[in-house]
Every structure is written in structure tokens, then in C-alpha cells.
């Protein structure tokens, strides 16, 4: 088999997940040797925008008609579509309000011109097309994207933890910010993979990786309430990165 044909794309977002790929400084030259990267607009001005692809890595959320059309075109030309980053997997920060009154927000920002802009409510990729692999994180962790590439090159589907950040945090023997310091730490509900990056630094988890399938949601919520944190505050915190997903405790990914 030849090298897999790969495309790397960004819809609406901060480009952080593409940046993480470029931040693999020690592996970048090996990556471009092992993969046939055909379409990567952020890094190259010579792209084949029409060829069939084996793998498409797509970051960002769908926030415009233009995004939706691009995503559908990518889906049509790729065998495997991987959502990279919390925006692509869950909708990310742009979806935090559940897209209440978007027309009003647009008008607040751009005045009378707002209504003429191409702008749609924030959606995760799976709400628009079939997604074959989800790699969450805001941004994704270097190790997880490299592991995904290595696994796919060997024909194996990558496997990611379903357990929460709490598990990693305990393995690092950190003092619990939630139990001992009454901080609103989202570690019990957020999917692991960052090696408890924030609590390790005495900073409560903000849930940037999205919900963990194996989280004990009821017990975590009960603990927040016991600590005197208002439900409104908990809900707001949990909605920040995963829209309705984390607040509801579970996701409905594609």
C-alpha cells in the first residue's frame, strides 16, 4: 500500500488543533514523510482540493453555510473523517449558549449588516455528517494525534480513555481541588487524556476536553451541590466547551 492520502482542514475555530500538529517539531518531518499530505491550506499554497483522501482531519465547528458546504465536500472525498478538537467533536466554546438568540447577537456586533452575514448556529461535525473518529481536547494533545496517526498507519483504530480526568489526577497523587479546596473542578466529568494538566498546576479543570463516557455524573453533581455551588454556576461551567453535552452528562456523538 502506498502512503495514505491525508487532508488537514479547519472550519470555524482558533486553528489550535492544526497548530498542535505543526507543534510536533520533533516528528513533523517524519510525519510528512510517512503521509501524503495533499490538502493543508494553513501550511501550503499547493493543494489538491479535489482528490480522494484516505484520512481527513477536520478541526473547528460548523458556523456558516460555507463551513457546512466545505464539510460535506470533505466527507464526500474521504474514506475516514476524524474530528479533531473539542469544537469539531462537541461544538466548543461557540456552542456554549445553545445558540439562544443568534440574530440578536449578530446585530449587537455588526449592526444592521449583521443579518447579511453568512452565520449559522454552532454545530459539531457529527450533527452535519458521519464522523469516524473523535479526538477531543482544546486543543488536542500532541500524543493523542501522533498515536492516532501511528495506529492508522498500522491499520488499527486508535483507542482513547473513557474515564475522567480525576483518574489521571489521582495517579499523579494531587490533592483534590474539589474535595479539599472546594473549587469548581470539572475533573470528575471531563474525559482524560491530558494527564490532569490543570489540577496538576493547582488550577481547577474547566472541562475543555468534553465529557467522559465513564463519569459518575450524579455523584459529581451531588458533590458540587453539597459544596454549595449553585446549579446555575455548575451548568454554566459545564456548558462552556461542550455545549449541552457535558451539562447533560453524556454526549450523542455520531
Amino acid at each position, binding site marked *: 500500500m502506498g502512503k495514505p492520502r491525508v487532508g488537514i482542514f*479547519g472550519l470555524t475555530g482558533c*486553528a489550535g488543533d492544526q497548530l498542535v500538529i505543526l507543534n510536533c*517539531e520533533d516528528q513533523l518531518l517524519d510525519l510528512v514523510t510517512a503521509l501524503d499530505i495533499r490538502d493543508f491550506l494553513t501550511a501550503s499554497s499547493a493543494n489538491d482540493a479535489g482528490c480522494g483522501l484516505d484520512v481527513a482531519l477536520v478541526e473547528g465547528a460548523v458556523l456558516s453555510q460555507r463551513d457546512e458546504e466545505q464539510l460535506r465536500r470533505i466527507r464526500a472525498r474521504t474514506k475516514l473523517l476524524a474530528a479533531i478538537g473539542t469544537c469539531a467533536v462537541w461544538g466548543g*466554546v*461557540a456552542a456554549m449558549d445553545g445558540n439562544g438568540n443568534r440574530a440578536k447577537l449578530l446585530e449587537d456586533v455588526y449592526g444592521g449588516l449583521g443579518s447579511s452575514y453568512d*452565520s449559522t448556529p*454552532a454545530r459539531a461535525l457529527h450533527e452535519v455528517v458521519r464522523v469516524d473518529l473523535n479526538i477531543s481536547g482544546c486543543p488536542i494533545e500532541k500524543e493523542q494525534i501522533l498515536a492516532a496517526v501511528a495506529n492508522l498507519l498500522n491499520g488499527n483504530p486508535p483507542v482513547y480513555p473513557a474515564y475522567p480526568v480525576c483518574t489521571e489526577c489521582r495517579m499523579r497523587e494531587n490533592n483534590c481541588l474539589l474535595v479539599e479546596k472546594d473549587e469548581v473542578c470539572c475533573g470528575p466529568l471531563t474525559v482524560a487524556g491530558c494527564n490532569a494538566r490543570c489540577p496538576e*498546576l493547582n488550577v481547577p479543570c474547566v472541562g475543555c476536553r468534553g465529557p467522559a463516557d465513564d463519569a459518575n455524573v450524579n455523584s459529581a453533581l451531588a458533590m458540587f451541590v453539597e459544596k454549595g455551588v449553585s446549579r446555575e454556576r455548575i451548568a454554566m461551567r459545564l456548558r462552556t466547551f461542550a455545549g449541552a453535552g457535558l451539562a447533560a452528562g453524556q454526549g450523542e456523538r455520531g
Partner: protein
Amino acid sequence: MSRTITVEHLARVEGHGGITVELDEDAVTSVQFDIFEGARLLEALLRGRSFEDVSPIVSRICAICSAAHSLTSLKATENAFGVEVSPQTALLRDLLYRGESIESHALHLFCLALPDYLNHPSVTALAADHPDAVRLGLRLKKLGNSIQETIGGRAVHPVNAVPGGFGKLPSMDQLVALRNGLVEGMADCEAMLDLFGSLPPADFCRADTVFAALSSPGDYGYCSGDEIAVLSNGRRQALRAAEYKSLTSETAVPHSHAKHSSFQGRPFMVGALARLTANREKLPRRAEQAARRIGLTLPSANPMDNNKAQAVELAFDVEYTLNLVERLLNGGLEEERPVPVRPRAGSGTAVSEAPRGLLFHSYSYDEQGRMIAADVVTPTALNAASIEDHFGQAVRQSLEKEIPALTRKLEMIARAYDPCLSCSVHVVRLRHGV
């Protein structure tokens, strides 16, 4: 006969944008820098959020300048609540800014701009013919990231900088590792200056440009002081951060999700070239020496010189950061917790120099520390009108009038600004009670 220069989707920049220039014969009739990055309306979504949630949300405006957004946000919040951070925190924040600047400049210079000068489509294509140059760039980029990881806890969207200080201080071992990396970085910067000093000249757009930049009170830097210098026709005007709105008399334009800014009716340029120009009377020795070596004369009428200015800053920042880290290693770090932050009703504005130029965050909070109003003004939004102005100048001045040659020049100008289009659309103003 009318002709159109179109770049549907600009490559090798952060975010989504294009260029449309209309010509009637050889006369320019319209110039548009189209920014079609989707509108995330993040600042509008901040309404009602607790002050603790604000900096992690606004850092997501942009990955490449996430440290600048985080730190400027923290400073605006601290200003609103009257919080004064310790000198050690200020120093560590300075270090984080430098790490971001080193990474961002190395990324732009080597991965996005250099391929233009050496006629390659990408840095990976460049690797085949110029492997040493690419490895050099990746080492410098990694150095910037290692500083951000050590101080900020993550290279993209830092997590360790919090209201009042830092979650955890770096260990001595981490600082020693940084110092070793920076010592190698000093040698790499010599090679970087040689490389960028030897590139073919890019001199096809001369413009009488207005520059705006933070005029640092002490060392050449990105985050201290709040006086902004605007240089126009040899005249220097000073503004305070709180008066930032006179720099951002923005108008929404139909072809772009970024608003356009002007100062006293003229577009202006922010970024590395503006910073060096505004501070040229007091440039540190290393920056002066680097500018000489790379052939950068200030003030410059050539916007492409922003690339050279970034190379000068890169060389200066590596030396400056090495000195900072040595100082920390000699003096030691004092164990301290973040200054307690007690919310109160009030407003705060902060300014800093993100890698691409002036960045403003301005917030109003209620007495419980919930956001009432937020305004974020980013460098690329400030630059958008100036980019269009320079597009027009380049087309008018070009002796080659064929579309492919003109297109290439316009793309090079756009990239020289190092635009960050994710950032550019975040220009929001909320009013109380809206």
C-alpha cells in the same frame, strides 16, 4: 477593459480570508481583503459569566496568540477589581509573552513566509531542498513552545496563568532546562539572521505608513506600560490604553467579518515593524545589531519589512529571555500564591503587544464579578484597512501588470502582515442592558 485579481482562499495564513482587487485597464477601482472566518461571537457569550471563566474562554479567540489573549484578559480583569500582582508574577508573565513571541515569529518566518522567498509552496516542500533551514526554524519554534509549556502549562491555550498570579511556579530544574535551550537558541538566532539577511529582496510596495505600537517605558517589551505611540508623517502622538477607542473608530464592512479601523481618518499598521519603529530611539543593543545585520532601516516605507522586524525581535527576545531566566536562577523564585481577587463593580482596560500587534481587552463587571460588557480589539482587525491600502499601492506601483505576478505580490503582502483571521472577527462591543 476591466480585470479582477482574485485569491479565493489565502493559503499559509491563520484562518479564512481572500483577496479581490478590481482593475479598469491598469487603474485600481476596488480593493477588498475578504475575511469570511465564521463569527463565533465569543465576547457576546461572555455576558453573565464569572470573572474566573473569562480568560479561558477568550484565549480561544486564537491559538497562536492565546497567551497574549489570556494575559491581556487577566490584566483587564485585575484592573477592574484593583488587583496588583507581585513583581515576580509580572516577570513570569513577561517570560510567557516572550515564549509566545518566539514561537509565533518562528512559525511565521520559517513555515509561512520563507517558502515565498525561496519559491516553494510549503515548509514541508522546503524541507527537501533546504533541510537545515527548516530544522533551524523548527528548533526555534520548539524553544518558544518550551517556554510557554514551562510557564503557561501548555503551548496552546495556557492554563497556569490565573487571576492574581500563577497556579504553580516553575521548578529550578525546569528553568535550567530552559536556560540550556536558550543558550542553543542564541546560536540558532545567528544562523537565522544570516538566513533572513541573505534572502532575495522583496521591495515592491512603498507606502507612507502610519504606525501604532505600545511605547514601553522600560525594556523593549510587550506587556508593560499603557502608553501607545502613533507615528504619522514624522509626528508622534501619545495615547493611553483607556483612550483606545480613538484608534478603533471601526466601521462594519459588507465584504468582511472584521471591522475596519482608522486613526484620524487614516489606516495604520501594528505589529513588529510598528513596535521597532515606535521604539527606535531606545532600541536595545541586540535589536539594533540584528537590524543592521539583516538590512532593516527604520522607519521603513516597505510593509514587507515586517518580516525582517520579526526576525530582529526573535533574536532580541531569545537573548532577553535568557537573561530573565538567568536572573531567576540566580535569585531563586519566592513561593507565592496568586493575590486574592475580590470582585467589585467596575471596569478595566488592558493593552499589550500580541505577536501581531496591539491588543486591547476592556471589561465591565457587576459587584459579584459577572461580566456586563466586553470589548476585544485584535491586531489583525486593526491592520485590515492598512492591508487593503497596501494591496492598492502594490498594484499601482507594480511594473508587471499580469494577473499572476500581481496575485503573488498581494499574497506576499498579506502574509507579511502575518494576519490572524480567527482573531480579526472578534470585535465586539456590548452595551449595558443590551
